């Protein structure tokens, strides 16, 4: 761990306008290759923290350093997966996945190859010519992930991507996300309400308390990748699940 962290969050505070403090003194260093989940009660600022890393909003105090750059300058390294799939309704699935490559100015042939590859990875090759309204919520989210990964970002920020999906779909997408990450590695930041999801996906879980949002506890997840789906039924996993739930409860009762 002599490497400098890929993402360094230095005593970051955030308030919107003259409103109350949303985040206070957040301190976190994340190494390349980690997968960090933010979990906490609503209003703890976990989405705001994600948006701060993305440079979609600015810190009121403290600073964020991403690979030696400000978040805004580091955008090229990052991509954001939004809460709802956030697809352009007038573009077909393939054209939605292509968009970031198109905006980046990649040549047509490269774009087509990359789109085909990404659709293959998320298992949507057959749906390439459909429009977003013709897809289920889970499929839409797959498109969104394919789009995000099309530019092979070093850092992927996911804002409760599976929150609106049923549990079965969510479990499947969790497994797929890990499989994708094994092929195209990225450093992940993941906002969620689901403890299971956080434990299954992450290398570290950051539990935040609300009003103002502070880091209450950081839980290390020791399981090695690849993580099989059955990991979720092992005693060690359930133990960590219980530990995380306890931490969350403690935060809520404060």
């Amino acid at each position: 761990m002599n490497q400098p962290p890929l993402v360094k969050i230095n005593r970051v505070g955030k308030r919107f306008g003259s409103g109350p403090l949303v985040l206070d003194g957040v301190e976190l260093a994340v190494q390349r290759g980690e997968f960090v989940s933010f979990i906490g009660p609503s209003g703890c600022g976990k989405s705001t923290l994600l948006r701060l890393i993305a440079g979609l909003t600015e810190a009121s105090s403290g600073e964020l350093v991403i690979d030696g750059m400000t978040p805004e300058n580091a955008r090229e390294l990052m991509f954001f997966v939004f809460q709802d799939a956030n697809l352009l309704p007038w573009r077909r699935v393939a054209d939605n996945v292509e968009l970031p490559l198109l905006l980046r100015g990649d040549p047509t042939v490269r774009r087509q190859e990359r789109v085909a590859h990404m659709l293959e990875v998320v298992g949507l090759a057959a749906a390439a010519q459909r429009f977003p309204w013709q897809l289920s919520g889970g499929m839409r989210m797959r498109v969104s992930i394919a789009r995000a990964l099309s530019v092979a970002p070093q850092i992927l920020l996911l804002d409760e991507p599976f929150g609106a999906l049923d549990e079965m779909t969510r479990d499947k997408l969790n497994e797929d996300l890990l499989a994708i990450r094994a092929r195209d590695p990225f450093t992940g930041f993941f906002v969620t309400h689901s403890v299971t999801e956080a434990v299954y996906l992450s290398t570290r879980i950051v539990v935040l308390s609300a009003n103002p949002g502070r880091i209450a506890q950081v839980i290390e997840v020791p399981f090695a990748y690849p993580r099989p789906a059955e990991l979720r039924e092992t005693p060690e996993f359930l133990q960590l699940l219980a530990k995380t739930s306890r931490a969350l409860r403690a935060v809520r009762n404060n």
Partner: protein
Amino acid sequence: MKARLLSWIQPAVTGIGLIALWYLIKKISGVPSFILPSPDEVLRAAWDERSVLISAVMLTSRGAVLGFLAAVGVGFFLAMALGFSPRIKASFYPYILVLQMMPVTILAPVFVLWLGQGLPSIVAITFMIGFFPVVANTTMGFVSVDRNLQELFLMCKATRGQEVRYLRIPGAMPYFLTGMKIAGTLAPIGAIVGDFLAGSAQGGQGGIGYMTIAYFSQLKTPALFATGLTACLLGFVFVGGVNWLHWRLLHQWHDSMVKKE
């Protein structure tokens, strides 16, 4: 299938009923044909005057199409400018409203003074009637862009031009087409009013508005009614065309068109 047949039969029955009522009123009141012609007299007049009416409709369509295209084109780019910055909108929108509030009967003589009798004035009047709904709707479309999509473009480091091309213009399309639909219904009316107020009868031939005046002054009431019928047909063709365009551009993706199964 049955429902489809019914959707044709219902309006047909209403139509037959209305025509019967028309005959009935004429019969009972006994008014002469120059006050109220019967439907068959109107159809006969339409047939007798067909060459005049066809050339009138062609003339009027020319004004309607040109005025419509001007309204849609200018309206689109004006809306883009207004949507581009709140400051531009604040500076110019009130005056666009003023222009819209100005009655066309007052503008018409001004246009005649500037452009003379005939097509240019008719186009200008059609434009004045049609361009506001395009501007108002399209501006709304350019302004109401999904914030999340905007952030997506921000994450992609999209340039302003890319955002306009790939996000704002497609996003504004449904609004633009709604404005275009309204302009489409107004354009034939605008051209007829324009012809009425600023038309000229080159070689004894005028547009629909001009023929209205001619038939009225000659008390050729059945022909006057036939002119009205022709104007309706022109209107339907226009609206049909715009509706087709609307369908063509939106049916694959927009909520208003998509059939959810």
